[in-house]
């Protein structure tokens, strides 16, 4: 009988011992799994950060290049064309009926057109208003230009005048380019007559809503072309998010939210 009882002490000790052993194994296994997961997540986060930095570098170098080309066009080509215009101005035909008069007149018109085009391209590449007067002024200038061209009627409602002054230049450039892309898309594809740009501020977040009265599109069929990718890239770099709201026959609307950095 005594021997049988001793076996049960061993059985109890065995059960308790194996419970501790199995429990320790499970705890160590779980700890290890969670550690691996955490390391993987940190790696993924670093990878995403790195990609974002690369993207930012690409966009910055793109803007620098655009600025350089814009300035060169304005300073070199624009100046040369203006000189050419002056030179032709000095050429005075003998009379109004002189055939050369027509050629002079035509040449002046062509040069004027080229000067206008070069100025337009130069402005588009690097809008001076953006660097000197800020985002609001640059958007107003763009809207005014498009309205004058008759391609589209853009209405700008700016309820965030003060907070827009606090935006950094890179963020201003990014938001400007995004709006520029949206306007171009509206002109090229939407067949719209009107568009609205509304800028508002809630706490430290700037909310920009762009909408048009064009033909819209099925939200599930939004083709992510170069334009949309450009928009997404620029907004990702400045940590802004966007929501597209569109449907066939119901226009196109996009809401962009940009939170100003704490400092």
């Amino acid at each position: 009988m005594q021997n049988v009882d001793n076996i049960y002490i061993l059985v109890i000790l065995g059960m308790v011992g194996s419970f501790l052993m199995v429990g320790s194994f499970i705890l160590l296994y779980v700890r290890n799994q969670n550690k691996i997961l955490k390391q993987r997540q940190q790696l993924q986060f670093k990878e995403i950060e790195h990609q974002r930095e690369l993207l930012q570098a690409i966009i910055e170098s793109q803007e620098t290049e655009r600025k350089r080309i814009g300035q060169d066009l304005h300073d070199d080509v624009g100046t040369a064309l203006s000189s050419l215009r002056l030179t032709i101005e000095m050429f005075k035909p003998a009379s109004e009926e002189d055939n050369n008069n027509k050629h002079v007149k035509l040449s002046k018109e062509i040069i004027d057109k080229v000067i206008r085009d070069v100025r337009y391209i130069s402005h588009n590449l690097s809008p001076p208003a953006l660097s000197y007067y800020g985002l609001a002024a640059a958007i107003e200038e763009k809207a005014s230009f498009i309205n004058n061209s008759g391609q589209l009627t853009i209405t700008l409602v700016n309820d965030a005048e003060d907070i827009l002054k606090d935006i950094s230049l890179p963020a201003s450039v990014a938001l400007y380019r995004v709006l520029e892309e949206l306007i171009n898309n509206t002109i090229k594809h939407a067949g719209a007559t009107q568009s609205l740009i509304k800028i508002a501020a809630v706490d430290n977040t700037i909310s920009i809503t762009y909408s048009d009265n064009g033909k819209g599109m099925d939200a599930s069929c939004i083709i992510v072309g170069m334009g949309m990718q450009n928009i997404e890239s620029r907004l990702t770099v400045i940590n802004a998010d966007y929501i597209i709201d569109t449907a066939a026959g119901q226009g196109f609307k996009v809401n962009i939210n940009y939170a100003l950095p704490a400092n």
Partner: protein
Amino acid sequence: MDYLYIYISYVIPLCIIIPLIIALVRYRFLTFPFKILFWFLVFSGIANAINTTLSSHHITTTTLFHVYTIFEFAFITWFFNIVFDKRWHYIMIGMVVIFTILCVINFFFVQNGVEFDTYTGTLEAVIIIGYAILYLIKENDTEQNVTWEQSGLNWIVISFLIYYGCGLFMFISSNYLLHATRSVNIIVWSVFDTITLVEYLLFAMGFYKCKT
């Protein structure tokens, strides 16, 4: 000692309600493996109730354990069959068939109906420990996107590992209990039933986390 007797005879068997209630509350989220486990617990609860009733009338229930082992193994193998990939499908079916045959041979020719099925019970425990370890190896090789605690299946599998790993000593030596004193029986079964309670609580956690 009376308290311990109530603990092992009534409290622990009734604790099966804990995972069952949680499973019923989360029933619409339960995937197929969890549903198998739910019906296994229902079967187990019924078997426990029959065992308790017969024991209270001093009727020997060791034969019941022989039958219960077959169904227990079938349910748990079915559970792991769904969890593992299709390679294991025919192996597991084969194992259920072979194990059933072994249980029948054991009952009629080796350990008669008045003894616990220690051979087949221990074999069953070893195989189920093997299933659990295989699952952990599979999980280790798979890239996870959520923490370990978020997966309901993880909780279920470790409950099997704890119950059958710790209960192995009990399955091996349960026939010795038949010759021991009442107090020794109660003490040993109390320890084993506490492990059963841990199993039920881990099942409950598994059902709770099944949505993820």
